[in-house]
C-alpha cells in the first residue's frame, strides 16, 4: 500500500457539522410574544372583557378611571372592552383573509414555477394588474359599490395581499425549480406532482408562514384603514379603525377614545411584522429586506 492511499481519507475535508439556522432574533421573539398576548386576549375576550355594546349615556367620554381603565367612548361604552373585542374583529378578518391570500398565492406560485410558460405569464400579469391599482383604491371602489360586510371585506383584503405571497413564493419556487436537485429528481423519475410534493412544498413551507404573517399584517393594516374610512364592519360591532375614526372627532377632549384602538393597531401590526421578519431572517436571510429585488 502506497503512502498516498494511507493518507487520503484524512485529507477528505473538514469535519462536517450540523448547520444551525439563525434564530428568529430578539425582535422576532418580541413579536411572537406580543402576538401570543394579543391573540390570547382576543380569544379570551368573553372572559376578560365586559359587553362591548353596553352603553352608559350618562357618562359619555368619561376619562380613564379605575372602573374603566381606558375611559368611555362617545356613547359611553368601555373603551378597553371595545379594544379587546375589536381585536377579535381585526384578527378574525385579517387572519382569514391572510390565510386565503397565502394559500391562493402559494397555489399560483407553485403552478407558475412548475408549469412555467403561459401559466407563469398569466399569473404574473394578474399580479401586475393587482399591483397597478393600489389595494386601498380597489377596496374603496369594491366596498363602496358592493357593500361592506364580512365577505366582501375579506375578498378585498385577499385581493390586496395575495400578490405578496405570490411574488415571494414564486421567486423562491422558481429558484428551487432551477436547482439541480429538481433536475436530479426528474432524472430519478419524478413527475410534476412528485416534484411538488417531495421537493417544492417542503421547501416553500417555511416561506409560506413568513408570507402568512406578513400578509396578515398588511391585511390588518388595510382593514384598519377601511374601518377608518367607514368601509369596515358595521357598528356597533367594535372595529379598531372605526373606533379611531369616531374617536378622532373628540380627539382634543377625549384623546383615549382614538388613541387606544390606534395603539392596538400599531402593536398588532408590529407584532406580526416583527414575527414575520424574524421568520424571514431565519428561513430566508430576510425576505422583506430583498422585497422587490427579484
Amino acid at each position, binding site marked *: 500500500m502506497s503512502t498516498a492511499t494511507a493518507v487520503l481519507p484524512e485529507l477528505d475535508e473538514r469535519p462536517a457539522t450540523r448547520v444551525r439556522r439563525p434564530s428568529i432574533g430578539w425582535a422576532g421573539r418580541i413579536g411572537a410574544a406580543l402576538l401570543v398576548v394579543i391573540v390570547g386576549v382576543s380569544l379570551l375576550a368573553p372572559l376578560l372583557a365586559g359587553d362591548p355594546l353596553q352603553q352608559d349615556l350618562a357618562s359619555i367620554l368619561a376619562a380613564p378611571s379605575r372602573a374603566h381603565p381606558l375611559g368611555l367612548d362617545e356613547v359611553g361604552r368601555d373603551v378597553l372592552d371595545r379594544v379587546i373585542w375589536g381585536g377579535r374583529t381585526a384578527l378574525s378578518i385579517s387572519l382569514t383573509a391572510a390565510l386565503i391570500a397565502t394559500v391562493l398565492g402559494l397555489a399560483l406560485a407553485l403552478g407558475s414555477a412548475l408549469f412555467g410558460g403561459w401559466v407563469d405569464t398569466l399569473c404574473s400579469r394578474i399580479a401586475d*394588474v393587482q399591483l*397597478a391599482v393600489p389595494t386601498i*383604491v380597489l377596496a*374603496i371602489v369594491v366596498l363602496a*359599490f358592493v357593500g361592506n360586510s364580512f365577505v366582501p371585506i375579506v375578498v378585498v383584503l385577499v385581493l390586496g395581499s395575495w400578490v405578496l405571497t405570490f411574488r415571494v413564493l414564486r421567486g423562491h419556487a422558481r429558484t428551487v425549480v432551477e436547482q439541480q436537485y429538481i433536475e436530479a429528481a426528474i432524472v430519478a423519475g419524478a413527475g410534476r406532482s412528485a416534484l411538488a410534493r417531495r421537493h417544492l412544498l417542503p421547501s416553500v413551507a417555511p416561506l409560506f408562514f413568513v408570507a402568512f404573517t406578513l400578509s396578515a399584517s398588511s391585511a390588518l393594516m388595510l382593514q*384598519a*384603514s377601511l374601518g377608518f374610512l367607514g368601509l369596515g364592519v358595521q357598528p356597533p360591532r367594535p372595529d379598531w379603525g372605526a373606533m379611531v375614526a369616531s374617536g378622532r372627532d373628540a380627539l382634543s377632549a377625549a384623546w383615549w377614545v*382614538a388613541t387606544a384602538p390606534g395603539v392596538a393597531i*400599531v402593536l398588532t401590526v408590529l407584532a406580526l411584522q416583527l414575527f414575520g421578519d424574524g421568520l424571514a431572517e431565519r428561513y430566508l436571510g430576510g425576505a422583506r429586506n430583498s*422585497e422587490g429585488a427579484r
Partner: protein
Amino acid sequence: MSNATASTAPAGRPSGQLRSPIGVRHLVRRLLTGLIAVWGAITIVFFALYSSNNPVLLLVPPDAPPEETARLTRLYGFDQPVPVQYVKFLGNVVTGSFPDSLRYGQDPLTIALQKVPASLLLGAASLVLGVLVGGLIGYVAATARYAWLRRVPLSIATVADAVPTFFVGMVLILVFAVTLRWVPTMGRGAGGVTGMILPTITLAIAFVPAISRVFRTALLEALRADHVRTAIAKGVSRPMVALRHVVANAVGPTLNVVGIQAGVLLGGAVVTESVFGWPGIGQLSINAVQNRDYPLVIVCVLIIAIGFVLINLVVDVLSVLIEPRLRA
C-alpha cells in the same frame, strides 16, 4: 460564458460617447405589459361598479316621477346589457372620451387631469423626503460605527411601518397644527407651502421603512462585494469608496423597491389626501366613489394605474441607466 459575452461586446467606441441606454423594443414590451395591467385594473373596477345599482337614481330629484328615472337611465346607457356597456366603455377608454361625470356634468378626464399636478407635487415632495430619510437611515444602519446608531433609527422606522397612514396624519395634525399651530391643518387654502408639510411627512412615512430596509441590505451587499476590496487596494479614498463603489451600487436594488413602493405611494396618497383635504387625484377618487360618480371613478382608477405603470417604466429606464449590466 464570459467568452460568449465578450465576443458580442459592442464595437469599440471612445468612452464618454452616448450609447442608447435601453432598447426601444424592451421599452415597448414593458409598456405593453403595463397596458395589460391598466386594462385589467379598469376592467375590475368596471365590473365592481356595474354589479351594483343604477347610479341614475342619484340624479333623480326626490319628487320626480318614475318616468324620470327611466329616461335618465336610457340617457346614460345603463339599460344596455353589461357586455355592450363594457365594449362601449373600452371604446371610451381607447378614445379618451368618457361619458360626462355625473357630478361635474363634464368630461371626467379633464377634471381628473386637473388634479394630477397637485398629486404629483405631493408625491414628488414625499418621494424626495422619503428617499432622503430612508436612505439616510439605511446608510446609518449599514455603516454606523456605533451599534445603537445602527439599530435605533432602523427600529424607529420599523415601528413607523406599523402605524397606519391615517393614524400618522391624525396625530401630526393634533400635534403640529392644532396644538403647536406651526402648520395649517389643511393641505391648501391659506397654508401655501406650509400646508404641504404635514401631508408630505405623512406620505413619506409610509415608505421610509421599506426604503431604509432595502437600502441597508443593498449597502451591506455592496460592502461585501469584491470590487470594494479592489477599490480599497487601489488606494481610493474612503469617501470615494463609499460614494462611487458602495452607495452607487446599492442604488439599483433600492430603485426597484421605489418602483414597487409606487403602489404604496399612490395608495397612501389616497388616504393622506383625504385626511388633509389635499386637492389631488386621491381625494378626487374617494369623493367620486362616495358620490357614485361612475365615469369619474373609472377615470381616476385609470389615471392611478397609468401612474403606477409610468413610475415603473421610469424606474426601469433609470435602473438601466445606472446599472450598465442591464444593458445588452
